[in-house]
């Protein structure tokens, strides 16, 4: 099994390491903004352990998916509104 997978993040191809979380893949490539808050503020990773829900993004069309506890998959699409 190859060690890397490719995600589509806001339409761009991003290489990620198999086994890592979506949040880790985004942070490693310098992405910080994962969604906009209710009042339009940029938000990203915060608690990192699945508790605060502030790292959510739209993954494979599903909104409000926690990127910190979701592992990368080849071909996964991530929409961050950044």
């Amino acid at each position, binding site marked *: 099994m190859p*060690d890397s997978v490719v995600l589509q993040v806001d339409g761009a191809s991003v290489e990620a*390491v*198999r*086994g*890592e*979380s979506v*949040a*880790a893949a985004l*942070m*490693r490539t310098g992405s*910080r*903004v*994962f969604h906009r*808050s*209710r*009042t339009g*503020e*940029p*938000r*990203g*990773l*915060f*608690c*990192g*352990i*699945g*508790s*605060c*829900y*502030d790292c*959510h993004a739209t993954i494979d069309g599903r909104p*409000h998916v926690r990127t*910190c*506890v979701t*592992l990368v998959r080849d071909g996964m699409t991530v929409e961050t509104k*950044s």
Partner: protein
Amino acid sequence: MSVDVTIVGGGPGGLAAAAAALDAGLRPTLVDENHTLGGQYLREPVTPAARSLGAASGLAREVSELKRRAIGSPQLEAVAFDAGRDGIRVARRGAISTLPPPAILAPGATERVVPMPGWTLPGVVSCGAAQALAKAFGVPVGASVVVAGSGPFLLAVACQLMEVGARVVAVVEAGRPAPGLATGLIRDTGRLREAVSYLSRLAGRVPIMTRHAIVELRGGESVQNAVIARLDGDGRVRHGGHIRLRCDAVCLSDGFLPATELGELAGLGVRWDPHTHTWNLAADPLFGNTKIPNLHAVGAAVEPLGGAQLAAASGALAAYTLAKRLGAQLEPRAEARRAAAERDARRRLRFAGALRRAYRTRAEWYQRTLDDTIVCRCEDVRAGEIREAARDGIGDVNLVKRWTRAGMGLCQGRTCGATMCELVADATSRHPDEVGRLRPRPPLRPLPAALLAADGGSL
């Protein structure tokens, strides 16, 4: 005899409980919501980059040993979302099941972060988030990082950040750890070595500023500056002499908040801890005994300062205690291991007492939460709205929640609940244990409505 025992939480407490349960002849079923066992403290490296760091501590070996012994078939990615007399309700892979008592709860804790203006900026994370990124994936949260808050966890995270190549701009500690800490550390040589090793790795490379705190974070789409102020001995901000540090990430931690929700739904009480300003699950901190005979609770949810070591010792002790109450006869070697766990737990508990005296959570810290600071990150409710509601006579945080929507979002108040208590208490000149606390409501995590409906909608 072979009795099933449900264990919730795959961190040090739950793993040790599972290993001891097997040792005592019980059949443990361990559930954890993560992809891997270990919880937060024992988070295993997942990627090659993280594995190459190779800091195979004694504890890492301990945990792989625990995992090997404890785990027949753990249920991972299993969300314990409700509890009642008939057991723990667990959602896993689109199905719901009820795991019956007896049970040992080891749900752990989340981090306290005292909000200040700008803390919602991307790049500002909890120390636990930075640690998870570093340990599991070898990813630094930023290139130039300020680590701030209070507690020995700051030092550990600063070291881990350096290991993955980040520059730690400063460690900013609100307290000034009292001499009591040294005495306590000597009682627990393992943790003494750990503390000394962190300090020696930081010495000369990272400024450690005690009695300082971040009062503001600035940036556009992500954090760029941290403004640091001096604190007085009570934790109040002193005027003048603010320092600005450039950074591209900030890690915050002001202690730990026990995850009491599942235990409360199961019928357990909580008690106020005036040193940590937390509500802890009401259980014996050594044996995990609670007011419900077949239900034990251990770890950070009971003693937020106990660390992984007390969690592991009391987890094991709880399982042996439960087995004996169920009529198990321990073999001599198992009895020896039980006795060793008891000695270990007593020692670790004494250390937690020393830590309690050295680091104190201060109500004054929340003066940094200025009125325009967002408190509820889910619903974007600001501190001023919460204070105003409290001053207008809404004195209970559950009513403040309904009035302001703070605590009503996806995280169900886990992130803002403690802050709400402090703000409401301060605004009405009461103690935080006098203003109520957000009541946990099932499901404890958002679940698909179809899943709950298919299960009969019994919530």
